[in-house]
């Protein structure tokens, strides 16, 4: 049982405030008579955070009731589905904010009393400024929650007729298959998409309706891994048409956008879950039947983990599995510390969250919890059908366990529990820690050059040859620096090749001060007139775009300051450096 059960609506606490009283419409006024009385007394005092928190909880539960009721029914009305989607979004957001606030609050208490032994370790890893709520004052939090409460409760009032019509739609039979869908959350929050596909599958052309009774209907699901040209697709279609089946439905799935022109109906775009929805998903998955409210410390840890996972579905499943099996704060702390370590390392080394790379199916460097000296890399990920063989080793074994393998291999990242039981497999590698040589050898620079024949060279070779004589000097200079830097081994012309490709910043001119600020040789390289000419040539598209943006900015500046108008008019004719300088100074005033 994954979805949290709504047993009894909690009794709204005392201190109702007028703005929400009429919107909430508690089922029985008599039941809350006491609360109502209190409200009259407190009418003029400001509502406390606690009050808002309880009200928000109550409203969220109501939203949840509607959501779960709707999910169990086969709704065909488009507008209703849209409205439900909006309500669901608001609900996820509400839970995200509320949980964030509640567990954050709790976390501060924990920190004060130092209850958790691991806490000091964690607080080092997670910088406090990352926290969503710690920066705001209590008043700000209050306003935020109040705003959320208002919008949610007005939304619920708006769903009156929706709830009424909901009854008219048939209930979905909870056959085992549907139960899977509901319990495993496989179709989490995707009711609109589900209904869309079901109606597509059930849709038949009127004059073909008798075929429904016959056999020979065929459903083809095509998964496009790379690029699919229209020619190839046409061939594929004609091959399908030659099949015996009379009624064929084809569903194409792909990560690329370019399949959109192949289909005959609209495209259903499945985006990654937003942060708020992902938290709700991860919470239900990790806590299962346990109530997160009873384990606020664990919930806090889970929230941080969800933030790090960044919408990664496979990661969420794997992690939730481990967490649920080890429902213990020490283990959770360890896992979170591991997450932090991997993410920080990845960001400092490659400049991005590993989950983002995994989401885009790009190679990512992960680590292993038990043996942190080993580098664990994921190269590629793909589906396997149930007929194909899948690896025995799971991703959890590698990440959290002590599986002893090295080299390249495959792991099972996730196996679907609903037919057709697809498996998701990662191709990965564990690199054994190798003792790094203190100094990389580069003595062969002046070794034998291969004999070059004449005539067949492109301009690049001449470039290479032209720069060659300068190398020894450059190398000697780098050697003086004494570092084992990766760049110190490169001749300057290659460093220039790399720096040439650094894209110009979109709207700010700081980048090149940044590059120049790294070290002297880089500054020298980018100051070279030849380099500048080539740079301007290679990036002319971006530079034109920037110039346009600057012109727009200039217009803006012109509107603001009349006295400079004469000067700026000149700049339309020929933008020059001096005018840019003037602009950047004036725009700061």
């Amino acid at each position, binding site marked *: 049982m994954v979805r949290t059960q709504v047993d009894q609506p909690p009794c709204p606490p005392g201190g109702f405030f007028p703005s929400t009283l009429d919107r909430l419409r508690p089922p029985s006024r008599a039941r809350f008579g006491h609360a109502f009385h209190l409200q009259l007394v407190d009418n003029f005092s400001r509502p406390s955070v606690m009050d808002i928190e309880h009200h928000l909880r109550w409203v969220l539960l109501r939203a949840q009731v509607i959501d779960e009721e709707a999910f169990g029914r086969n709704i065909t009305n488009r507008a209703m589905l849209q409205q439900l989607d909006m309500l669901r979004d608001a609900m996820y957001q509400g839970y995200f904010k509320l949980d964030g606030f509640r567990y954050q609050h709790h976390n501060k208490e924990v920190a004060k009393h130092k209850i958790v032994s691991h806490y000091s370790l964690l607080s080092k890893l997670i910088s406090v400024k990352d926290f969503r709520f710690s920066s705001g004052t209590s008043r700000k939090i209050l306003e935020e929650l109040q705003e959320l409460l208002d919008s949610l409760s007005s939304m619920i009032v708006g769903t009156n007729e929706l709830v009424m019509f909901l009854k008219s739609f048939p209930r979905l039979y909870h056959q085992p298959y549907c139960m899977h869908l509901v319990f495993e959350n496989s179709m989490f929050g995707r009711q609109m998409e589900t209904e869309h596909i079901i109606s597509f599958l059930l849709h038949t052309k009127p004059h073909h309706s008798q075929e429904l009774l016959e056999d020979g209907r065929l459903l083809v699901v095509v998964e496009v891994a*790379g690029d699919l040209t229209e020619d190839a697709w046409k061939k594929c279609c004609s091959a399908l048409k030659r099949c015996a089946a009379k009624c064929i439905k084809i569903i194409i799935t792909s990560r690329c956008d370019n399949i959109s022109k192949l289909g005959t109906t609209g495209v259903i775009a499945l985006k990654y879950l937003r942060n708020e929805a992902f938290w709700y998903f991860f919470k239900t998955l990790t806590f299962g039947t346990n109530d997160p409210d009873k384990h606020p410390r664990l919930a806090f840890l889970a929230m941080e983990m969800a933030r790090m996972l960044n919408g990664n579905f496979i990661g969420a499943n794997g992690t939730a599995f481990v967490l649920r099996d080890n429902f213990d704060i020490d283990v959770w702390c360890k896992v979170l510390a591991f997450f932090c370590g991997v993410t920080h390392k990845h960001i*400092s*080394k*490659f*400049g991005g969250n590993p989950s983002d*790379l995994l989401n885009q199916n*790009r*190679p990512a460097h992960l680590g292993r919890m038990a043996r942190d000296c080993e580098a664990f*890399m994921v*190269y*590629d990920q793909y589906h396997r059908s149930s007929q194909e063989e899948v690896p025995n080793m799971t991703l959890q074994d590698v990440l959290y366990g002590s599986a002893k393998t090295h080299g390249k291999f495959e792991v099972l990242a996730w196996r679907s529990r609903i037919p057709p039981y697809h498996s998701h497999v990662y*191709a990965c590698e564990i690199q054994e820690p190798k003792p790094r040589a203190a100094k*990389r050898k580069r003595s062969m620079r002046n*070794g*034998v050059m*291969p*004999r*070059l*024949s004449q005539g*067949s*060279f*492109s*301009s*690049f*070779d001449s470039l*290479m040859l032209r720069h060659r004589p300068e190398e020894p000097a450059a190398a000697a200079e780098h050697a003086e620096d004494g*570092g084992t*830097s*990766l760049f*110190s*081994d490169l001749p300057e012309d*290659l460093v220039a*090749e*790399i720096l*040439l*490709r*650094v894209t*110009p910043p979109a709207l700010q*001119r700081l*980048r*090149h*001060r*940044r*590059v*120049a*600020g*790294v*070290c*002297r040789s880089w*500054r020298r390289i980018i100051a070279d007139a030849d380099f*500048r000419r080539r*740079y*301007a*040539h290679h*990036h002319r598209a971006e*530079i034109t775009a920037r110039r346009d943006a600057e012109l727009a900015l200039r217009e803006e500046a012109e509107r603001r300051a009349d006295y400079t108008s004469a000067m700026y008019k000149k700049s339309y004719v020929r933008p*020059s*450096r001096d005018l*840019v300088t003037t602009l*950047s100074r004036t725009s700061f005033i």
Partner: protein
Amino acid sequence: MEVDKGKGEAEETRKVAEADRDTVTLKSSDGKLFEVSKEAAARLSTVLAGMIAGGSIDDNGTDLKQIGSEALENVVDYCNKHANSIPSAALISSSISFNTAPFKEPEEWERKFVDRLSHDALFDLVEAANFLGMERLLDVTCHKISEMMKGKSPDQIREVFNIKNDYTKEELEEIRQELAWAFYDD
């Protein structure tokens, strides 16, 4: 899967190539031998093309003393993968006028190819590509390194690439004051 597939197909092409005696044997600085098809070598590397045309290819392994075995393995891997991928218009045009045309974005497989490399291997590969005159590979690897600098401060860049800061405080301040040169001032 792509890695395995690449290897499997590489082996297959190697076998076919051996039958035709249509391969070039390359020898790394530490004496390891690698084979690559003559066609791919000539197409991708101007230096190797020159050597093939000039007849300076040694059947027992052409010495490439500047290139270590790891880098050479990557080079050969790249050649094989390149042979298996469909050359797109971007590839062809970029090889014609390297020095003047804007850089073409790396293809998906090329991105994956460089993404999986460690920093050391990547820098070794830049040098190997430069030495062998493999424009496209140089393009792809340099692009990857330049991407690593995206959105980073000088301090972060220095940290990532382990570059020593050889500026004095005053000089850094001077750079901060100095206006960046405009890109289009000529």
